[in-house]
Structures are given as C-alpha cells and as structure tokens.
C-alpha cells in the first residue's frame, strides 16, 4: 500500500476547545503511518452558519480551502462531522460548471482558482476505506475487550446522504466496524443517528440540552459504558455540557465520551496522557485499562 497522504483540516473546534481530538489524531496517524499535512492558511468552513448569511460567500470561502488542497495535490481529511458535511455540500454544489465559474470569479479577486477536483473525507472513512479495517486490526496492541461502546454518529457524517454517501443514514455501520476491529463490544441503541442539539446551544439551550440528555440516556439504558463520536461538536455537548443535560432530564448519567481517534489510540496502546483524557469534563479514566 502506498503511503496515505492528506491535507489535514482539523476544523476550528479541534484547534481550541476539543484540542485533544486533534493531538490524538496526529499521534494515531503517526503510529499508523498516515501522513497529515497541515493547512495553515485554511479558513473556517462556516460550520453551517455562513449558509444562513450568504450562499456565495460560503461557497467561495470553502472553494478557497479546496484550492489550497489542490495546490498541495492532496485530498482533505477532517476530524469534524460538521466540517465534512459543510465542505462536501459546497464541493457538491461546485460540481455544477456554472456555479464553479461564478465562484471562481469571486476567488480571482483574491488571486485564486479552484478546478473542482478535491475529495473531502473524514478520519472515520479514511480508517474504514483508505487505511482498511484489516490493516487497522493488525496494529491493535490492546484490544478493548472490556468496553461496551455506544457509537454516536450525530447528524453530519450521515445526512444529507446525497452529498455524504458513505453510510446508509438509516443503518450506518462504519463506527460499529471500527469498534469491533478494536476489540470492543458495540452497544446498539436507536438514538445513535440523532442530533446532539449543538447548533442551538446558544440560541435555545433548553432544546439543546434536552436533546443531549436523551441521547446520553439512550446510550446508557442500552448498556453502554461510554460513547464514541466522530464529531467534536457532539463531543462538546455530550461531554462538556453533560451536567446541564443531566439537569434537564433530571437524572445522573456520568457517561464518558471519546473522540474517534481516542478509542483507536487507546487500542494502539497510547496512554491517558497521550489521549488528552484529563481535558474531558466527565472523566473516562475509571473505565480505561
């Protein structure tokens, strides 16, 4: 297998509030031999907020990110579901020649252009498809046999499936397949493809935290020891704001939540410190070995 190389787009959240997802991903990639190339000039994708302001501004700013990857001659890998959905939606729209021409006119004012040929992937897809589950299985040093892990997809790795297209939005399997390869037991529950509420944290917090609480309870009631999510925004709600969610649903939950890279790292033998676990508000240190 030739070396996998990606233009690495961690997303804004994982450069600040969920830094541990970023640092762990870099270490995991190092162990697996996946090359991640930084994009210091990459701007924010708009996180689904610029689409509420000006569609062409959103498309042009995303095209600027893609143009950088194009100059690097690499596809983009992100560790954020929302970045994935936003960038893939923009890229999908830019496949229309007329739209691409219109957006390139805007880009030309900044001395840039984009051809429309970059692919955008999530770490989740890179592990399952590009790196491969069998290769991953060979790297596992510490199978997670003692852990019941509830996969939480959230929204933006699945929907809209027209632009995401990797998993069946009604019956996804990529997270489950990774959990199994790492030796963990999958906890099945209905809420795994539902919304954590993040987008309205600041707009309508009652709605947001009620949603967060229901997802956590659903995972817990079905026997999960912990949750794993490919999305830093889901992590913010499920972990950082778990105490607010507990208040909203009037129950103690105490459910540790891992980033995808962290459970991979754990099975590769990385330490709690390397995984940045002290940064979590609900400590997972009691359930790791």
């Amino acid at each position, binding site marked *: 297998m030739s070396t996998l190389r990606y233009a690495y787009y961690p997303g*804004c959240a994982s450069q600040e509030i969920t830094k541990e997802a970023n640092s762990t991903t870099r270490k995991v990639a190092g162990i697996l031999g996946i090359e991640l190339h930084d994009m210091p000039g990459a701007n924010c994708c708009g996180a689904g907020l610029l689409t509420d302001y000006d569609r062409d501004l959103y498309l042009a700013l995303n095209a*600027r990110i893609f143009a950088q990857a194009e100059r690097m001659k690499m596809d983009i890998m992100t560790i954020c579901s929302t970045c994935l959905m936003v960038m893939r939606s923009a890229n999908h729209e830019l496949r229309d020649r007329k739209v691409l021409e219109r957006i390139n006119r*805007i880009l030309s004012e900044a001395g840039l252009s984009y051809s429309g040929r970059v692919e955008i992937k999530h770490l989740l897809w890179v592990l399952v498809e590009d790196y491969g589950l069998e290769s991953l299985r060979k790297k596992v040093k510490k199978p997670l046999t003692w852990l019941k892990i509830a996969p939480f997809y959230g929204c933006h790795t699945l929907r809209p499936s027209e632009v995401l297209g990797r998993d069946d939005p009604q019956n996804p399997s990529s997270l489950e397949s990774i959990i199994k390869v790492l030796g963990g037991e999958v906890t099945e529950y209905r809420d795994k493809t539902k*919304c954590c509420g*993040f987008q309205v944290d600041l*707009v*309508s917090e009652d709605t947001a935290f009620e949603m967060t609480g229901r997802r956590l309870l659903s995972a817990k009631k079905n026997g999960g020891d912990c949750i794993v999510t490919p999305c830093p925004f889901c992590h913010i709600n499920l972990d950082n704001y778990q105490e607010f969610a507990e208040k909203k649903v009037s129950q103690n939950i105490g459910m540790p939540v891992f980033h995808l890279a962290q459970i991979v790292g754990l099975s590769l033998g990385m330490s709690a410190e390397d995984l940045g676990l002290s940064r979590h508000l609900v400590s997972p240190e009691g359930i790791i070995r």
Partner: protein
Amino acid sequence: MKIRFKIRRCDPSSREGCEPYIQAYNVEVSEGMTVLEALIKIADEDDPTLAFRRSCRSAICGSCAMNINGFPKLACNTQVIPEYRKRGEIFIEPLANHTVIRDLIVDLTPFWKKMEKITPYLIPREEGSIRVTKEDEREIDRVQRCIMCASCNSVCSTLEVDRQFIGPSALAKSWRFVGDVREGGSKRRLERLSEEHGLWDCVRCVHCTEFCPKGVEPLRAIERLRCRAMEEGIVDNEGAKHVDAMVDSVRRVGRLDEAAMTFRTLGFLRSLGMIPFGIKMEIHGKMPHPIIFPKIEGIDEVKHIYRAREREKEKKD
C-alpha cells in the same frame, strides 16, 4: 414469498386505553408489492380492524406516511421486498412526534395548526402586476412539491423536544411565499418567524431534507429564510446574532473565535452567568480564549473574498 409484518398498534376503545402493542402478520408478498398494498391485503384478508390512512396510492396525496423500519416513508412508495432485504424485517409504526389516534393513524391537528399559523396564501404586493421570470419561479420550485405528508415534522429533532416549534413543513411553506416575487408581506412574515420557536430553533440535523419523499429540502428553505431575514435587518435575536458573530469572526481571523461568538450571541449579562462553569472548563483546559493574534495565513485573501461578495451584492441592489 411470505414476509412477517410487525405493526405497532393501539386501540383507544379497548379497556386498557391506547397502550401500544406489537402485532405480527404473515403476508404473501409478490415482486413489486408496496407496503401499502400489503397493508390493504392484511385488512382485506386477515384483520379488518387494522387502521391506516391511504388514498391515491401514487405518492401525491400524502396520506400514507408512516414509520417503516424506524424512518418515515410513504407506504405507497416503498416496496416491501427491497426494504425487507435491506433491513431483515418489516416493522411499521405510526409517525413519531405526533399523538396516535389509532394504530397507524396520528392526529395531524398540530401539523395543520402550524401551517395555518404561517398564513399559507399569497399576500400580493401593492404595486400591481409583476413579471415573473423562469429564474424567479425556480427559487420556489422545490418547496411547491410538498404534499403535506408530515414526514419532515415526524423526524424533526427540535419538534421531538419542543412541540411549539413551528417545524420544517411550515417553514418550507413559508419560503413558498417569502421567496415569491409577487409577495408583499415578506418582512412581516420574517419578523414573526424570527420569534421564539421559529426559524432559528432548527438544529440543522438534516432529517427533514433526508426523509422528505418529494425532495422539498426544507432545510434549504430554512437557510433561505434565515438569509432573507438577515438581509431585511431582522437581527435582534440570538440566532441572527450567532450568525453575525461567525461572519465577523471569519472575516477578522479566518476562523471561529469561540469566546467572541459566545459573548456576542449571549450579550454581557448572560455571558456573566457562564463564569462558574467557565472556571470548571478552564481547569480542564477547555475554556475558549479570545483570539487576538493568531490569524490564519493569507487572511487578506479572505478579506478580498468578502469584499468581492459585497461589491456583487451592491451591484444587484
């Protein structure tokens, strides 16, 4: 082939009240048979008490939306065998987010009330006749496909926890009028929709767009309503402030400045209330600090893009 149908039922006239239970039926299914045809067969041959809504059988009337294997679909538009092959079973339930009247029939009164609330008819402009171009028509083309089956409302994440939320169907219908060049009451409509439980309460879970059987894309309509509300200067609400803070943050530093966004969205007083939790976040190294210096490389390109868009918009006005 024989396929086992599991159906969630309830009967309000029974002594136990409307306590739901699962009943199974074995149905002889032929190639191409739809879920609706199978249900009609069950009612005809096996159990005439099974209640469900249906009318046109060709995905136009919107009567037979129900949850098939966990997600809303039109029974008349879903073939049994492919669905069975995909999921290994056929499990039918009434639409979620609605009160069940009996078996697969839900009470759609809240759905129609929300629809009424948005004034679902054109309020013509005062200046009389106006020329409608093909492009104008295209703006509202998708939302006109709605057949009011309530699938979107039944999977709406916000409606699941907030029954007062106006919901994706009524929002898509709102765009039908706000996006119509002949409409004269857009601003008033947008002001009303910007209130609590309105267009800014959508969590962008994309359920509505994913599961609409007619490709209406309610989320896209919500985005358009939000853009239009901001253009109209209806920005004195947390949703619009949040977007505004993002627009400003990306222009300034090229990325999301979480501290500034929280502050600008919540305002000074509500931000003060966040301090005790902020201290806890700080202990775990999670407190976002305002970004003062670290701009992305090539921030000038971002600024050029913003200015180019502003010039285009000015020209259009």
